[in-house]
């Protein structure tokens, strides 16, 4: 409820026509001004600062999970592109780098990648591919492209998990064949998923030029997963 008191001075030499309209000082004008609000505005009105931490985390986790589902079952939808976020790629990249790194107690001889090397390869690779796509004239925004490329590492992270489990068994050619098969399948899945999202943003005569670096990127990550040897 809002109350306003209006007072207006009568200035006949300026507003000649209004001379007969005068509001005396001691008559307050009051009333109620209500603005019909939609219920959605009231949510933002309370602002996400006031909600519980659990709400915030669950909302972000649900968004990430929904995008994971979109990657696993790639359809031509805009969800990944519209509401991009970089939480998913960060989680995936950290998981992958943790699993791929060599232990710190190892000697110089073990030449596997360090955590930082994997991290740098993933992020700089994604940035380079995004820059390449934009330079070729694609109409996708920088972070949308990073989001898609990061989320499509999900199949390869799953392949890494499977490989680590398989490596717990005894080594041998069968072991290697199983890992090779899993990595190839997941590599193809990553390519298909990312192409489904990224290919439409390029002009048609340059699609192959934009997709090839994505292929190279996931190939290198697959290679790192395949050649991972435990200590």
């Amino acid at each position, binding site marked *: 409820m809002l109350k306003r008191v209006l007072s207006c001075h009568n200035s006949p030499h300026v507003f000649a026509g209004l001379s007969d309209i005068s509001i005396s000082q001691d008559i307050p004008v009051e009333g109620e001004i209500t603005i019909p609000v939609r219920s959605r505005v009231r949510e933002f009105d309370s602002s996400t600062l006031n909600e519980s931490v659990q709400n915030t985390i669950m909302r972000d986790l649900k968004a990430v999970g929904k995008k994971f589902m979109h990657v696993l079952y790639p359809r031509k939808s805009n969800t990944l592109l519209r509401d991009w976020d970089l939480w998913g790629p960060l989680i995936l990249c950290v998981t992958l780098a943790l699993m791929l790194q060599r232990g710190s107690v190892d000697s110089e001889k073990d*030449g596997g990648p*360090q955590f930082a090397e994997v991290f740098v390869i993933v992020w700089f690779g994604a940035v380079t591919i995004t820059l390449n796509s934009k330079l*070729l*004239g694609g109409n996708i925004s920088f972070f949308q492209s990073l989001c898609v490329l990061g989320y499509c590492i999900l199949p390869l992270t799953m392949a890494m998990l499977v490989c680590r489990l398989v490596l717990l068994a005894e080594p041998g050619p069968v072991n290697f064949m199983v890992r090779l098969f899993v990595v190839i399948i997941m590599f193809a899945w990553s390519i298909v998923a990312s192409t489904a999202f990224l290919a439409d943003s390029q002009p048609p005569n*340059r699609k192959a030029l934009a997709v090839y670096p994505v292929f190279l990127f996931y190939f290198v990550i697959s290679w*790192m997963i395949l*050649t991972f040897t435990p200590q």
Partner: protein
Amino acid sequence: MATVDDLQFEEFGDTTTSLAANPDATTISIEDPGETPKHKPGPLRGLGREEDDELLGNDDSDKTELLAGQKKSSPFWTFEYYQTFFDVDTHQVFDRIKGSLLPIPGKNFVRLYVRSNPDLYGPFWICATLVFAIAISGNLSNFLIHLGEKTYHYVPEFRKVSIAATIIYAYAWLVPLALWGFLVWRNSKVMNIVSYSFLEIVCVYGYSLFIYIPTAILWIIPQKAVRWVLVMIALAISGSVLAMTFWPAVREDNRRIALATIVTIVLLHMLLSVGCLAYFFDAPEMDHLLTSTAAPNQTVVAAKSS
């Protein structure tokens, strides 16, 4: 002021008649692109080489020069400036790769394929692919050579990727820079007809490295003779592409300097391939020697454990 008469179209007749009427007037004759303008006087006739006609006298190339000059107008701090270097279509990239694989004698790679539209897509991604091809093939070949040895623990040598990247990108950028600087310096002393821009040289070098990608993959085969044959073939192809590209640029120069330039270009190319072969790929015979001098009980141990 222009009168009505001045606005009417006029027939000027043949160039010969107008030249006869006014010998000082300059006339421009535009022929069909199919004909080479053999009646143009000048130093070209003295040399009598067909390449120069193809290089300079072609109307088509003049048009592309004009168009290219209109393209790059954005200042270098805008994104659009760099987009002009990626203004290629898929089929153009394929054509350029094909041109680097099949050097036709007499045809200049830059004139035929690049045509004042040098791109950075090809050089950058060919170098990136080559880096990973060499690193992965090196690891694979070492793994296959040492396969069966119980004492050998396979490690994916990741630092080789960084070393390979440094070597290849340095070669693909610094050598063109040096060559361009050298050509500019010679150009100031001897007037060369053909001169290349820095980006065109980078383009040629980048695409000439493409042949090394299948070569690196085939280097996995652990036979020394096979590897050296591959080196020779790759060097012949990419060396000839480079030589035929740069020969017109140094031809007017002192004979010795021209030859020295071409020899240096090919030599550096050979150095790159031989260096990569030596560093990333273990020699097969050495390890066979080791396994043969070791006691046969090692193979027995391997057989027991598998």
